[in-house]
C-alpha cells in the first residue's frame, strides 16, 4: 500500500516537473523573442505565445486537480542537511540560481506562508471584513451582483441586435440592383432614358435644346458605335494617321468628323 502511494507520487511529480519545464521553455523563448525580435514581432504572434503559455498553465492546473494526483499539500519537506559551502550539484540542478543550501536561503525557498507584505494585506482585509456586519456585507454582495448582471445583459444584447442586423443585411437586403447599374451606365454613356434635346437642324442654329425635332438624322442612341478596339486609336493612340479611302475599311471616327467639320457640314462654309 505504502509503496503504491509512493510510486504514484513519484509519477505525478515526474509529470509535473516535465510540464513545468515546458512552461519554462515557452517563457524562455518568448522572452528571447521579445528581447531580440521586438522590431519585427507582430501582435498576432505575441498573442500566439500568450495562448501557448495559458494552455500549458491550464494543463498543469488540470494535472493538479486530477483525482489520481496525490495531494501535494499533505507532503512535508524537511531540510535534512544545511551547509554554508557551495554545492556544485545544486548549482547544476538549479541552473546556477541557487549555489548554496544554507540557513540564509532555505527559509525563503521552503516557505509555505505568503510574503510578509501579502500577509499584512490579508490581515487588513480580514479586519475590514470583520468590522462590517454580515447584513451590510450581504447588501454589498447583492449590489455588486446586480451591477454585474445588468452589465452582462448590456454586453450580450447589443451583440444579438448587431448579429441580427448584419444577418438581415446579408440575406434580405441587397445594397445594389444590377438593372439600375445598367440603366445608369446606359444613361451616362448614351443618354439612354434621358429626354432627348434633339438638334434643331441646320436651319435654326443657336440655343441648344430648343425647338422641335425636325430632322430625322441619327442621334447618338440610334447610331451603332463600333466596338472593335481598332477604332480606339481615334484620338490618342500612337498610330500612323488614318489611311485615307481604303476600300472595305471603316474610316476612324475622328477622321470622318474632322473632315465633315471642315467640309459641307461646317456652318462657316455654307
Amino acid at each position, binding site marked *: 500500500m505504502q509503496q503504491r502511494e509512493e510510486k504514484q507520487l513519484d509519477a505525478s511529480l515526474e509529470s509535473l516537473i516535465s510540464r513545468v519545464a515546458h512552461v519554462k521553455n515557452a517563457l524562455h523563448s518568448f522572452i528571447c523573442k521579445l528581447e531580440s525580435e521586438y522590431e519585427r514581432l507582430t501582435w498576432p504572434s505575441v498573442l500566439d505565445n500568450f495562448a501557448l503559455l495559458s494552455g500549458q498553465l491550464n494543463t498543469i492546473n488540470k494535472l493538479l486537480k486530477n483525482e489520481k494526483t496525490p495531494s501535494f499539500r499533505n507532503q512535508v519537506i524537511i531540510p535534512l542537511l544545511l551547509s554554508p559551502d557551495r554545492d556544485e550539484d545544486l548549482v547544476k540542478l538549479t541552473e546556477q540560481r541557487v549555489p548554496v543550501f544554507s540557513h540564509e536561503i532555505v527559509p525563503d525557498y521552503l516557505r509555505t506562508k505568503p510574503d510578509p507584505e501579502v500577509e499584512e494585506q490579508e490581515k487588513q482585509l480580514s479586519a475590514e471584513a470583520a468590522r462590517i456586519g454580515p447584513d451590510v456585507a450581504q447588501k454589498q454582495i447583492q449590489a455588486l451582483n446586480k451591477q454585474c448582471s445588468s452589465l452582462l445583459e448590456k454586453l450580450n444584447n447589443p451583440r444579438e441586435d448587431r448579429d441580427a442586423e448584419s444577418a438581415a443585411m446579408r440575406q434580405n437586403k441587397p445594397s445594389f440592383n444590377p438593372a439600375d447599374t445598367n440603366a*445608369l451606365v446606359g444613361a451616362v454613356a448614351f443618354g439612354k432614358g434621358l429626354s432627348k434635346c434633339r438638334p434643331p437642324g441646320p436651319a435654326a442654329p443657336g440655343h441648344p435644346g430648343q425647338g422641335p425635332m425636325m430632322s430625322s438624322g441619327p442621334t*447618338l442612341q440610334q447610331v451603332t458605335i463600333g*466596338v472593335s478596339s481598332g477604332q480606339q486609336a481615334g484620338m490618342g493612340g500612337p498610330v500612323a494617321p488614318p489611311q*485615307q479611302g481604303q476600300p472595305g475599311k471603316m474610316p476612324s471616327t475622328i477622321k470622318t468628323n474632322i473632315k465633315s467639320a471642315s467640309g459641307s457640314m461646317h456652318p462657316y462654309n455654307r
Partner: protein
Amino acid sequence: MEAPPVTVMPVTGGTINMMEYLLQGSVLDQALESLLHRLRGLCDNMEPETFTDHELVYLLKGQQGNPFILRARRSLSHPTAPWHLRYLGQPEVGDKSRHALVRNCVDVAASHSLPEFLNEMGFRMDHEFVANGHIFRKGAMKIVVSKLSRILVPGNTENTERLSLSYLVELSVLAPAGQDTVSEDMRNFAEQLKPLVQLEKIDPSKQRH
C-alpha cells in the same frame, strides 16, 4: 499624297495622351449611407466633397460613320467655375487579365461661352442631365458616387426628375496608355467595397438596348 491636315493627326505626347481606367456599379438609395461610411474609411483623409454638375452631350455628325461626341460639364454649385470639356474614346473591354474598362480621355477647361462655341462649330446637343453626389480619392483613384437626374424642361436645371432609385458609383484612374497595373489596384479597391457595391467593367454598348 499630301500630308493630312494637322487636326487629323492623333494627339500624342504630354498629358493629353491619357487613358481613363473605369469600373462602374450602383448602390441603392437606402444603402448609400453605408457606402459613404465605408468610403470615408477607405479613402484618403480629406474634407467630404460634394458636387452638383450639369452635363451636356454634343454631337457632330458627319455624312457617314459615327458622330463625334463631346461632353460639356458645368458646376451648378460653383457657377463661376470654368466649364469642363471632355472627349471620351471608344471603351475597350479587353481580356480577363485587365480588370477595368479603358478609354481614351481628353480633359480641357473651357470658358463660359463653350455652348455657343460648340454650336458655331456645328455641334448639336443630344442630351443633358444633372449629376449630384460625392467625390472620394485614394491616391490616383477617384471614386464618384452620384445621383443622375433627367431635365424635364430643356435648359432648366431646377426642374429635374431622378433617373432611378440608385446612385451610380464610378471608380476611375487617369493614366498614360499601357499602364495596365493600375487596373490591379482598382480591382483590389473594388474588392473592399463588396458586397455593398459590385464594381465591374461594363461594356456600355451592351446597355444600349
